[in-house]
């Protein structure tokens, strides 16, 4: 039992750390991200959370979890739509890069882990991951993507996404507290 709890804690921590440090580490090791790379990271990060939400909508029967997942799917799609409209207007083609590739690789592992769970174990794993993921993405947007963005409209879009992400985090923590009781 103890080893099971330890394994769960370890897995969650590893997922959180992987996301939390991949973008800042890249930024320190490399030159600034270009606007095309930032656009790719933004779309990828939003799509990953839509994918997690799709799994939650399929697997969970908890009303709070399902409602949260529906909000994630709708909001992150709205953000992608805005990002795509902007890069189209600016004639920028999102450029695949090491960060977006790392995000996708980590998401594959997380989706596999989520799909292997069911019931309340799934609910907890999903919402714990949402808390960790949003913390990591907020950190990356604030400390790397916004400072690196060159185009004023792209910078402004990223700044307007921040309150959305912070609200998602508060919402996720609220659901996390509710289901852990």
């Amino acid at each position, binding site marked *: 039992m103890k080893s099971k709890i330890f394994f769960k804690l370890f897995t969650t921590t590893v997922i959180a750390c992987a996301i939390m440090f991949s973008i800042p580490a890249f930024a320190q090791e490399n030159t600034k991200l270009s606007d095309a790379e930032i656009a790719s990271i933004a779309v990828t990060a939003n799509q990953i959370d839509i994918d997690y939400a799709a799994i939650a909508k399929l697997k969970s029967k908890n009303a709070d979890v399902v409602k949260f997942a529906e*909000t994630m799917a*709708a*909001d992150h799609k*709205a*953000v992608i739509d*805005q990002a795509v409209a902007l890069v189209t207007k600016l004639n920028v083609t999102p450029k695949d890069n090491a960060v977006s590739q790392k995000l996708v690789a980590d998401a594959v592992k997380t989706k596999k882990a989520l799909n292997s769970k069911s019931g309340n174990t799934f609910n907890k794993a999903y919402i714990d991951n949402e808390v960790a993921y949003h913390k990591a993405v907020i950190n990356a947007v604030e400390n790397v993507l916004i400072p690196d963005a060159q185009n004023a409209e792209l910078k402004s879009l990223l700044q*307007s*996404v921040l*309150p*959305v992400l*912070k*609200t998602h985090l*508060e*919402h996720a923590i*609220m659901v996390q507290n509710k289901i852990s009781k």
Partner: protein
Amino acid sequence: MSRLFSITKKSVIFLCVLFVINSCTSSPENVEHKVYTVEIKDMKFQPAELEVQKGDTVVWINRDMVAHDVTEQPDKTWASSPLAMGQSWSLVAEKSADYYCSIHVIMKGKLVVK
């Protein structure tokens, strides 16, 4: 003749008194109601608390890129449909109420009807 004049005089005075009373008493039809706007911006209702008079109109307009709604709390006695970016919804204020966004449940507002 003088009696007729007296009755007419009394009637005129009575009508004048009625007019004055009517002018001083505010009937709902005569009150000019105001229109207030609450912006939904940066995932907040701005202002979060709004004081209005009964019968005033409150318009909520969504300035965010994500959809929001405006739902009375706790009984959901009134609610807007989801408002996409740029869309608005209005309500004639009848009584004070707490409200929230049922999509983003941590977003809360308050309407105070004086």
